[in-house]
């Protein structure tokens, strides 16, 4: 298909359709309303269904039911709405249901604001909900990558029978960029038929029961170990990242994800013109985090800079990656304000000049 100029939210919606998702359940919230808007007109065209639920809690439980019947399903929301879905996401993980959830993050806490933010890093990677599960999380930095990752998310969700989240900020939702969909796209995983799905019992196979309740502790322990095996496999096989700039000899290595990484790349190119060598590691999966890649690039760089639209949530994973205490510098904007290339340039120069304060840890 030829390139089309698409808004991020529309590209995400179209990507879901292209991936064979014919059921969408959601509840409106800015800045992702164009996803349900797009799908409300698109789903009927492919014989699918768009349902505006009465709440986020209802949406995620509709996903639970439809995924349990073996369908590819998606919902999208923004930060406060994702919090409301958290319980249901845990149930999906417990019942091993492949669901795709898109979070176009907005600034918080509480109702916060509607402008771009990366405030939900902890929630996405560590604390989505109760019960010791993991959420595979993909963070696009462009509209094309958003479209690609949404399609991959469905394959990954089916393969691991686990919820997969695509996390973007308001720029990913609102920006327009050229997007191309590939008609001959193949699944990125070998996907067996969903024999586990509850599609109606005709005495031809064991009953398929979708459930996350295990009152026998021995049985639940077996289930937990089974889930752990999946999470271990994801950590082994699904880490995604990209590196940029002078990865073998950087004065400063930047760790940034999503659209913030693009801002940093502009800064890196400008700094290169001035002879300052900067590298970047961009996590594409936030969980599993690319610990090894960060460690390797950081080991060859003099200084480390984390840039985020949060108060420094990803710093924790960068510290874990390093294995030994090293100074980390940090730059952020909050509340829906954006980082500019000029700010990153100034920060890198301050680090080089020794005038940037390191992040302090107790």
């Amino acid at each position, binding site marked *: 298909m030829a390139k089309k*100029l698409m808004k991020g939210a529309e590209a995400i919606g179209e990507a879901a359709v292209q991936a064979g998702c014919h059921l969408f359940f959601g509840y409106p919230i800015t800045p992702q309303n164009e996803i349900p808007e797009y799908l409300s007109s698109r789903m009927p065209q492919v014989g699918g269904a768009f349902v505006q639920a009465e709440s986020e809690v209802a949406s995620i439980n509709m996903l639970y039911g439809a995924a349990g019947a073996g369908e590819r399903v998606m919902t999208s929301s923004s930060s406060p709405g994702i919090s409301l879905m958290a319980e249901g996401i845990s149930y999906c993980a417990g019942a091993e249901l492949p669901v795709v959830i898109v979070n176009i993050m907005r600034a918080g806490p509480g109702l916060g604001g509607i402008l771009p933010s990366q405030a939900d890093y902890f929630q996405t990677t560590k604390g989505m909900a109760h019960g010791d599960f993991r959420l595979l999380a993909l963070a696009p930095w462009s509209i094309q990558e958003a479209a690609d990752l949404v399609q991959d998310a469905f394959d990954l969700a089916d393969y691991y029978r686990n919820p997969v989240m695509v996390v973007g900020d308001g*720029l990913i939702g609102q920006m327009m960029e050229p997007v191309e969909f590939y008609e001959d796209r193949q699944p990125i995983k070998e996907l067996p038929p969903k024999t586990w799905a509850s599609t109606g019992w005709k005495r031809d196979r064991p009953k398929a029961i979708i459930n996350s309740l295990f009152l026998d502790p021995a049985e639940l322990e077996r289930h937990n170990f089974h889930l752990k095996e999946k999470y271990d496999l994801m950590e082994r096989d699904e880490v995604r990242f990209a590196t940029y700039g002078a990865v073998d000899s950087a004065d400063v290595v930047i760790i940034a994800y999503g659209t913030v990484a693009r801002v940093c790349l502009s800064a890196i190119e400008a700094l290169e013109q001035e002879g300052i060598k900067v590298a970047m590691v961009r996590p594409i999966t936030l969980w599993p985090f690319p610990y090894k890649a960060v460690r390797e690039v950081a080991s060859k760089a003099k200084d480390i800079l984390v840039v985020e639209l949060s108060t420094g949530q990803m710093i924790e994973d960068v510290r874990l990656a390093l294995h030994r205490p090293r100074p980390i510098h940090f730059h952020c904007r909050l509340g829906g304000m954006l980082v500019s290339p000029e700010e990153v340039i100034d920060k890198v120069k301050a680090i080089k000049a020794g005038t940037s304060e390191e992040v302090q840890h107790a």
Partner: protein
Amino acid sequence: MQNDVIMAGFGGQGILLIGKMLAYAGMQDGKEVSWLPSYGPEMRGGTCNCTVVISDKPVGSPVIQNPGAVLAMNLPSLEKFEADVRPGGYLLINTSLIERACKRDDIRIIDVPANTIAQDLGNPRGANMVALGAYVGATGAVSMEQVEAVVRQTFAAKPSVIDVNLEALHKGYDLGREFAATASGGAAS
């Protein structure tokens, strides 16, 4: 090579539309492009703006603090973005609605009486097309051929307005071209 521009004006002036058309033309030219609208709580008739980046390589930051060009379609937009234009960059001022002059002398200022021109053409709603044409004429950011194609495509459902909008586009384009020619002549003398 990168061209970036912030287009700003009242809601309803068709600012977001010409931004999209510019980005689309750039894409058709084989360039990398991004279009980023200001979004947030706005009232009807409030200000709006968009940032368009057209580049030979993948677009880095879609947010531009100091753009190479600003198109100010009303006074609040001039006030907001006048100081941000990169030195040597372009500031297109819709002099039909903005009475004061620009205070800077380190940028290239183009007076575009967009509404007046559009009205004279009998197409008062075409002021945005005049402005788009002027930007393209002055900067050469995208090919006029692609912009024309985009105009035809955008108004395909209303064929009666295609020609008048193309006319407005060309008036603006000529104005932009003329500025580019005299500006370089001025520099030589």
